[in-house]
């Protein structure tokens, strides 16, 4: 079975199991037209030549995969094509997707996307990101997911800066049916989170999710504040935070790499939540982030509903990138 078939099968399987219902609707457009599109591209370029590669390059760039990553990928592809003496575009498609998945996974196994939480004691999740990425909303959805799994969840309203942020988290708390620990707007976020930890300990909660204010990564003071929050968590609960999730807007371009890097330096990010993937943006930059910084995507946001946070499926993701790429190619004809 060729690689693309495997990928397709994998995708079909998830469909029928109904696990990724949202994935399906989120990427329906691309999925339906996939087989015809790939044939079109293959038909258009019988030969694997410079034009073919150029179009491929542009298509990947249009998915925000990133210039450097794309250049490397194209170079590798060219080499591979030469090595295997591939002349037919039909054969090259397997190589393309192979390489894309390879970029994502590197040498790691494929189980890196799971949330790493303690089984029988308190786990702490710290949620960070720039302004407007969707932190509070993602926390609401995550709380709901964990509650559904039967976990006792508490939220800490650590965004004490933005107007209305605490109220926003409270609404999500109500919807998900979980308690929210808060202080007044303008108070010290580290203190709120300290309170949250105390509450979580005394109520024997399974998971504490800490919200933080959005901050641009080049604001030194704010990044220092985040490092302090992390230190407070480390001090209060050994081994915590168990996850530090960077919330990333899928529409973000190359700056996402800088975000991932700087937030990691301040708070040691363990995973990414890729939000707003239900639009036309493809969030291809996570390939570069995974490739360069070894930070995996753990969840994707596919809508505004409570159920719209899904575990990341790299195969489906790469499939989506690839399918869309073919669509773009066709548009240009």
């Amino acid at each position, binding site marked *: 079975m060729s690689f693309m078939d495997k990928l397709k099968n994998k995708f079909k399987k998830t469909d029928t199991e109904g696990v990724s219902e949202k994935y399906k609707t989120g990427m329906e457009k691309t999925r339906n037209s996939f087989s015809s599109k790939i044939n079109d591209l293959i038909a258009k370029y019988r030969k694997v030549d410079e034009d073919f590669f150029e179009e491929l390059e*542009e298509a990947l*760039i*249009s*998915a*925000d995969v*990133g*210039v*450097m990553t794309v250049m490397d990928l194209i170079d590798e592809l060219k080499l591979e094509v030469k090595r295997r003496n591939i002349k037919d575009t039909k054969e090259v498609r397997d190589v393309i997707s192979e390489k894309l998945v390879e970029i994502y996974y590197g040498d790691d196994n494929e189980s890196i996307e799971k949330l790493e939480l303690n089984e029988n004691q308190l786990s702490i999740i710290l949620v960070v990101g*720039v*302004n*407007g*990425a*969707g932190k509070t*909303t993602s926390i*609401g959805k995550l709380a709901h997911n964990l509650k559904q799994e039967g976990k006792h969840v508490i939220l800490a309203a650590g965004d004490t*800066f*933005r*107007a*209305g*942020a*605490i*109220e*926003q988290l*409270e*609404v*999500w708390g109500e*919807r998900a049916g979980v308690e929210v620990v808060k202080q007044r*707007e303008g108070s010290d976020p580290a203190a709120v989170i300290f309170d949250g930890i105390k509450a979580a300990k005394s109520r024997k909660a399974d998971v504490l999710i800490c919200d933080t204010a959005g901050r*641009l*990564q*080049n604001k*030194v003071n704010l990044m220092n504040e985040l490092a302090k929050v992390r230190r407070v968590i480390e001090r209060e609960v050994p081994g915590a935070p168990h996850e530090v999730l960077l919330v990333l*807007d899928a*529409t*973000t*371009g*190359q*700056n*996402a*790499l*800088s975000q991932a*890097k700087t937030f990691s330096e301040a708070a040691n990010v363990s995973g990414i939540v890729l939000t*707003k993937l*239900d*639009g*036309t*943006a*493809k969030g291809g*930059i996570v390939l*570069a982030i995974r490739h*360069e910084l070894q930070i995996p995507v753990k969840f994707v946001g596919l809508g*505004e509903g409570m159920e719209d946070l899904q575990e990341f499926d790299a195969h489906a993701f790469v499939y989506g990138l690839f399918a869309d790429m073919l669509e773009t190619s066709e548009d240009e004809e």
Partner: protein
Amino acid sequence: MAFEGLADRLQHTIKKITGKGKVSEQDVKEMTREVRLALLEADVNFKVVKDLIKRIKERSIGQEVMESLTPGQQVIKVVKEELTALMGGEQSKIAVADRSPTVIMMVGLQGAGKTTTTGKLANLLRKKYNRSPLLVACDIYRPAAINQLETLGKQLDMPVFSMGTDVSPIEIATKAIEKAKAEHQDYVIIDTAGRLHVDQNLMDELQEIKANVKPDEIFLVVDAMTGQDAVNVAESFNDQLDISGVVLTKLDGDTRGGAALSIKAVTGKPIKFAGMGEKLDQLEVFHPERMASRILGMGDVLTLIEKAQANVDEKQAKELEEKMRTMSFTFDDFLEQMGQVKKMGPLEDLLTMMPGANKVKGLKNVQIDEKQLSHVEAIVQSMTKQERQDPSIMNANRKKRIAKGSGTSVSQVNRLLKQFDEMKKMMKQMTNMQKGKKGKGFKFPFM
């Protein structure tokens, strides 16, 4: 170099051809390739890049460049002209309706910064144009969005109109205008919910609001960090609503902001304002030509000059120059000067605006700790008048007292004294030589 700025990249390439007597077609090709990569890395949409490169190539290979005496300079000129032409001229005027109130609608994706920008725009309208805006909370979907706008209204001491989350945004907007008329508010700013451009139901809702309130301005609020998708977003919103302008937010981040070029190219609509920070007065007029020259690494000199002019009293500056010449520069003057620098805004901003600053090693990505500045200030303020006038009277006891008074240490005081001394020497050298060669690195004590 993933984090290398667009400016660096172009400068590096341009350096290769500057000084060359003649530019070959191959040179131009090589350079446009670099320009292309740099633009793509800056998130300019690939289709926009393609057109731009084509034009640059055509002009560069033509007579204009190849037969000129300074081909390198010419190419830079061509690139800059093309970028500037693409960005368009400055347009920051806000519509004024013939009959009050003027209605402004804010639209955009989730998390772009609509609500914050609504507050900032209201503040600007009041401060700069002496208007009295009414803010309207039409985001009935996102939890606590109304609350957020109400809090901003309180901070600004401005009225906010809301009807809760159970009334349709169309009705809220319509009622708000009636209210503004009745209460003589001359501007109405409608904050709408964030939505995806492919969400047809919600896009229809915006069209309906538009049809009902007939806004004089529709601002599309876009995150400056947006990648390739910026064209899709801008195109959809523009097609469906015929927007009148764009507000680019989060430009105070370290993004290269190529989205600005993309949006302008696909919509043809002007980018009017730029969000430069989280505070409510940090909405600035967007200067397209300056953005273009910033992209080229020529520094945002104009902004710098403008800022300096606005904040530095010319008479004071003359006096200072006189003092520098006569060596009577004291700590009092120093304090005053620092105050003026601070008034111009964050030092990091000033540095990035300085031409060539991004080329100086160590200056690049420099993060000036504003706290350091206040330490320096505290030290000077803890000095007696006599000490400020004549630092040579300083002794151990005085230093100890100053350190205590300013909450710093004696070594910090010592360091400042030494730096001040060096600075004075530098000044002397500079004024003596006028167009002097570079000394051993002039440094402000707080850097």
